[in-house]
């Protein structure tokens, strides 16, 4: 007996295949969805790092530009400081020299002495009356340190512009004789900021050491000279940092600050957080759309394939239920091999079931008919026997024998579901009933007779055997019986022969009883054949010829 595999029989209550397919899909997709979300998050973080890196990079680039500008100014000043004209105190020549050196517009060169009095200023004509420098603090530092100094932003006295000074000492025999100054307009630095060509959401700026705005890429004029917000200033104390804060316009920004190596100014590169966030939000929306689309497509495909599985299985289940109800089931031609195999088996089973039901119904009908019919036969047999008999004892004996004969034929037919019996078995059975088998010679090809032929030939054989035992060959010990049959192919008939030998001398019957009628007339008529009885001196010879239509193919199905 086939036992199915029991998989977690008590853990999982039985579910429909659709449920397991959904669980299967969820099990397959959820780790992937989790992975996708994680990967997207990582990408977003990387992108943010990239923005922060870029913010810092822009600030560093700007700081580099500023330092180069200041260095260039320093070089100009140092070169001028070694001028012959200056050494010879020829200020007029030096003014001219300085003016030539200064090809740029938003700058001026000043020379101040120890009392911070301007000795010359390229913005004014040589010889004009000049005030003291407005940036005494830086000039003092130059005198003290004998080093180059860069000022914070202040309002130029002559230019009336926000300016910064680059100041170098003019040294004459180990002591500082003058301070040479280059005043640079803050606007120069604004242009420098623009030279970076950044996208519109970027704002860059420069603030001096006091946190006063020196230049700004947006609304420069509005904010120059104004202090940076306190929070921004606080967070900028550490150099090379990126942080979130609020700018002077009150916007949330991501800011990167770098200090100028030369001036110590804060160089800021900022990008509005709103822009960073919106690009991040767009990324999220895009990724989510992709994910939902992929999941949707996957779900559609999963549904299609699940239907390929679940639908044939449902059909197979319905087919099984139909078999249970005793209906016929046709085999399935579905995309699922297992379901096809299953329904093919169910189809075969339903056909077999139907065949057995039909056979069973046929046998029941046959049995019901046969049993009633046999009663009628027995009744007729009793009456016919009684008519020929003088005493009750004789009747009982003959009737008993005939019933036995009928029972022999019937036994053989029951073994074959009432379809019939083999002629060989029939002859053997009837001879055996009279214990005549050892003295009988049976010969003939295998023939399977129909039920009515079995019954009728059985009657004849019974009467012949009875006669042989009472009056014929079998009354002598050496007497023998030869039973043979053959098919007469010429006209599709069968010839059955009963020949007796070595018995008593045969005399034609004086009194022809019922048995005689059976073997000579009744059986032959019932089979639509012909019978012949000869009384030869050696013994009787009986021949029965009947149509081969009474012979069946043993393997034919029931009809």
């Amino acid at each position, binding site marked *: 007996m086939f036992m199915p595999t029991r998989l977690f029989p008590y853990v999982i209550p039985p579910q429909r295949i659709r449920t397991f397919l959904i669980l299967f899909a969820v099990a397959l997709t959820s780790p992937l969805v989790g992975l996708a979300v994680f990967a997207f998050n990582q990408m977003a973080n990387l992108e943010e790092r990239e923005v922060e890196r870029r913010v810092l990079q822009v600030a560093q680039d700007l700081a580099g530009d500023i330092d180069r500008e200041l260095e260039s100014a320093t070089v100009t000043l140092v070169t001028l400081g070694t001028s012959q004209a200056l050494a010879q105190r020829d200020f007029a020549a030096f003014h001219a020299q300085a003016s030539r050196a200064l090809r740029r517009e938003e700058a001026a060169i000043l020379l101040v002495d120890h009392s911070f009095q301007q000795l010359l200023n390229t913005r004014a004509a040589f010889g004009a009356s000049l005030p003291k420098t407005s940036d005494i603090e830086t000039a003092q530092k130059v005198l003290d340190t004998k080093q180059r100094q860069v000022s914070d932003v202040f309002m130029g006295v002559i230019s009336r512009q926000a300016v910064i000074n680059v100041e170098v000492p003019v040294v004459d025999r180990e002591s500082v004789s003058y301070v040479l100054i280059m005043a640079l307009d803050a606007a120069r630095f604004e242009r420098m900021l623009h030279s970076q060509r950044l996208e519109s959401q970027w704002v860059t700026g420069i603030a001096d050491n006091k946190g006063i705005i020196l230049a700004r890429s947006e609304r420069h004029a509005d904010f120059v000279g104004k202090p940076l917000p306190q929070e921004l200033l606080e967070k900028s104390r550490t150099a090379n940092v990126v942080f979130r804060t609020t700018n002077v316009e009150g916007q949330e920004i991501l800011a990167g600050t770098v200090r100028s190596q030369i001036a110590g100014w804060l160089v800021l590169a900022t990008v509005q957080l709103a822009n960073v966030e919106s690009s991040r939000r767009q990324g999220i929306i895009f990724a989510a759309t992709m994910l939902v689309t992929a999941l949707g497509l996957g779900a559609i495909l999963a549904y299609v394939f699940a239907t390929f599985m679940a639908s044939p299985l449902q059909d197979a289940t319905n087919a099984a239920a139909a078999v249970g109800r005793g209906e016929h089931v046709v085999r399935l031609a579905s995309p699922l091999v297992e379901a096809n195999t299953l329904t093919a088996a169910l189809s075969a089973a339903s056909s077999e079931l139907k065949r057995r039901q039909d056979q069973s119904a046929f046998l029941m009908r046959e049995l019901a008919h046969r049993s009633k019919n046999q009663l009628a036969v027995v009744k*007729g047999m009793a009456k016919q026997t009684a008519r020929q008999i003088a005493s009750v004892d004789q009747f009982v004996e003959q009737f008993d024998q005939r019933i036995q004969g009928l029972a022999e034929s019937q036994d053989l037919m029951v073994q074959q579901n009432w379809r019939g019996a083999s002629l060989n078995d029939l002859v053997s059975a009837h001879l055996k009933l009279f214990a005549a088998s050892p003295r009988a010679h049976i010969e003939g090809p295998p023939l399977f007779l129909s039920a009515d032929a079995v019954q009728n030939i059985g009657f004849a054989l019974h009467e012949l055997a009875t006669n042989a035992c009472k009056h014929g060959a079998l009354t002598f010990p050496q007497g023998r019986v030869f039973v043979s049959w053959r098919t007469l192919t010429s006209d599709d008939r069968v010839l059955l022969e009963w020949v007796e030998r070595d018995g008593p001398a045969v005399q034609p019957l004086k009194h022809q009883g019922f048995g005689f009628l059976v073997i000579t007339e009744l059986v032959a008529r019932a089979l639509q054949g012909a019978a012949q009885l000869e009384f030869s001196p050696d013994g009787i010879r009986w021949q029965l010829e009947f149509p081969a239509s009474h012979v069946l193919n043993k393997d034919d199905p029931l009809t």
Partner: protein
Amino acid sequence: MIVLETDLNPPKLWLAAVPAPSGNSPEDQDDDRDLAMRSLRVLIVEDEFFISLDIKHLLETLGHVVVATAVSADEAVKIAEIEHPDVVLMDIWLAGQRDGIDAAEDIHRRCGIGSIFVTANSDPETRRRAQATQPLGFLAKPLTAEQLRLALSKVRPR
């Protein structure tokens, strides 16, 4: 010998087609008595000779004449056409290709002779088919003289 009783109760095995007696009215009694006197020419169709001999004996006892005994449908039709019996006692289950219903139908169509079916047992389908030929009656095997007498009492000689 069969004693003819005029006030018979219908036997239990009596099967429909012949209308059951409606009562003991004098009219019915006269009718029965009249019919009982008539001798019918009967064709027996039966492939079991023990049964056909029994039926033949019963018929002769009832005073009828058996014109022949046929063992197959074809033979029955052939004999009916020659002998023109008054009625056919037809076994349904016959040896051969065609059964008694086919033969009864044929005989009725060709000769206008009605049949009384004599059958051991029949499934509903066979019964429906037999009924469709409008038989003169149904008789169950084994037959009794009384059943046979009653069934034949409704048959008129041709």
